[in-house]
């Protein structure tokens, strides 16, 4: 049949094109699959012989590198707790209470959060953090991220809470629960998937970011992994490739794991400010 043959041809052409694009996309990352396991890794692509974990041993023995990962964890967890907590409370209030001007608040928050971006805000954020006296503290990074990520987080969660029937809490309150109890015992468990999404999103954002800790932190002992990674260069400025490769893989691991988790649990979609 004519039609089915042309459809078959089209499929074949599409498959070839798709494979090619996929390979081109993967190319810059292929190096990362091999280099961490190669004790003599250079910038060139080479199959390690033998496969070895010695680069990882070196990283684990490097206390500065490990401490930087700990710093990343502190900053990411701190930020995530603030964003998750404050966004849940605020989104719930915006959805369920009758505060005047709710629509306007949401609008203004979204507007400001997209206007005051990293590149426009680096000067005033540095100034405000200096003025409060928080330069060179974990708290500075945590607070700045919390402020920056909150509007989008609230927006995602508000959409989520709006979709939950009010009758859940209403029936609890008819049964004698206080509004606060209705929130903690009835609403919160139902909202939990939305909070998980927001928390994962915030974590990945803070964990991977470079600019904010780069301008707010000076002390080596506070550097998160994203900034500390630049210390794996020799005095001459050439990268110590074996270390960098292994460290990059360790540092990327949480992001990969979270992606797989979200993909498995919810199917990977995007939410919120980016929702179409």
């Amino acid at each position, binding site marked *: 049949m004519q039609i089915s043959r042309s459809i078959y041809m089209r499929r074949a052409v599409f498959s070839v094109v798709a494979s090619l694009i996929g390979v081109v996309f993967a190319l810059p990352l292929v190096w990362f699959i091999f280099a961490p396991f190669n004790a003599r890794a250079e910038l060139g692509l080479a199959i390690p012989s033998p496969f070895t974990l010695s680069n990882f041993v070196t990283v684990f023995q490097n206390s500065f590198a490990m401490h930087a990962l700990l710093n990343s964890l502190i900053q990411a967890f701190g930020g995530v707790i603030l964003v998750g907590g404050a966004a849940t409370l605020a989104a719930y*209030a915006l959805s369920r209470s009758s505060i005047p001007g709710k629509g306007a*608040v949401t609008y203004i928050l*979204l507007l400001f959060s997209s*206007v005051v971006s990293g590149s*426009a805000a*680096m*000067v005033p954020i540095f100034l405000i953090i200096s003025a409060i006296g928080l330069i060179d503290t974990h708290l500075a990074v945590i607070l700045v991220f919390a402020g920056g990520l909150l509007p989008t987080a609230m927006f995602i969660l508000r959409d989520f809470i709006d979709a939950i029937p009010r009758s859940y809490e209403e029936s609890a309150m008819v049964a004698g629960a206080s509004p606060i109890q209705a929130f903690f015992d009835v609403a919160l468990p139902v909202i939990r998937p939305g909070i998980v999404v927001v928390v994962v999103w915030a974590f990945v954002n803070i964990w991977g970011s470079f600019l904010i800790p780069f301008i707010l932190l000076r002390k080596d002992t506070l550097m998160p992994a994203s900034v500390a990674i630049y210390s794996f260069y020799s005095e001459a400025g050439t990268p110590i490739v074996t270390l960098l490769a292994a460290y990059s893989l360790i540092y990327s691991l949480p992001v990969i794991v979270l*992606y797989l988790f979200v993909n498995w649990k919810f199917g990977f979609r995007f939410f919120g400010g980016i929702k179409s």
Partner: protein
Amino acid sequence: MKKFSLLSTRAGAVFVAPAAALVGVFVIIPFFWVIVVSFTNKTLLGRTAIDPDFVGLQNYFTLFNPATFFARGQFGFSLILTVQFVLFSALIGQALLGLILAWLSQSVSPTLKNFLQTAVIAAWILPEVVIGFAWFAFLDYDNGTLNMIMRGLGLPPADLLLQQPFWVIVVFNTWRGAAFSMMLFNSAFQSIPPSYFQAADVAGASSWQKLRDIALPLIRGHVVTDLILITMWTFNVFTPFLLTSGGPSYRTELLSIYTYRVAFKDFEFGRGAAVGVIIMLINLAFALVYLQIAKKKKAEAE
């Protein structure tokens, strides 16, 4: 009957307070503060660090000084470079590639689709410093994977970071960000009833005809959303700094990197703030358009 609210206004205010405080101090106050600072000669060190003078529009005059405006390493050069960067890497690169990727994904086998989407999404989710280093290794003149392939094909190797730095960051940013457009168009295509395409198949329409005559008109709203969002993000992106540091000789110094250099390398906060204000004004224009469209869409949906 009045719809009774589940949370009293007072309790609601308490719930909103922590978020309001954080956003107020770290988003809204900086917005106004940067405007104030842009009218001063504040520096990081020295007398003007503590006690800056009010200099009116001096910083803006310096930025727009016609004598130096277009010179490399000056504001105008960065601004034009950034506009070109947005045009090529976001509007043409990411959006078009994302559209092609989403369209291809519709009609290839699930295995291939998974491979394709995983590769594209990996480029998007991995931390930016890791990506920066991966590309540094990929483009290395002596050993990099790219030149290895070039030599294998009998082509001359190239030191692209030195020879074509601008096009390197354009391709880099296209590669890095295509996932978002792809996913947005994926979900847009899925919202089209399959029967539309089946009818076109029966009529013998080609894939291009289906895309042009059925899919694109139906997802026009998604396309506009995508273009505005990726424009805003690309306009503010700092990641190319991790690959080129703005060099060689300012040839990849986007506005975000220019701001960083002026404020944190040259320590001229006043001038850096003035650049920040201009970036915010441009962001504001895009954000207003975006929110307007989003609002209209929501109203239509209700």
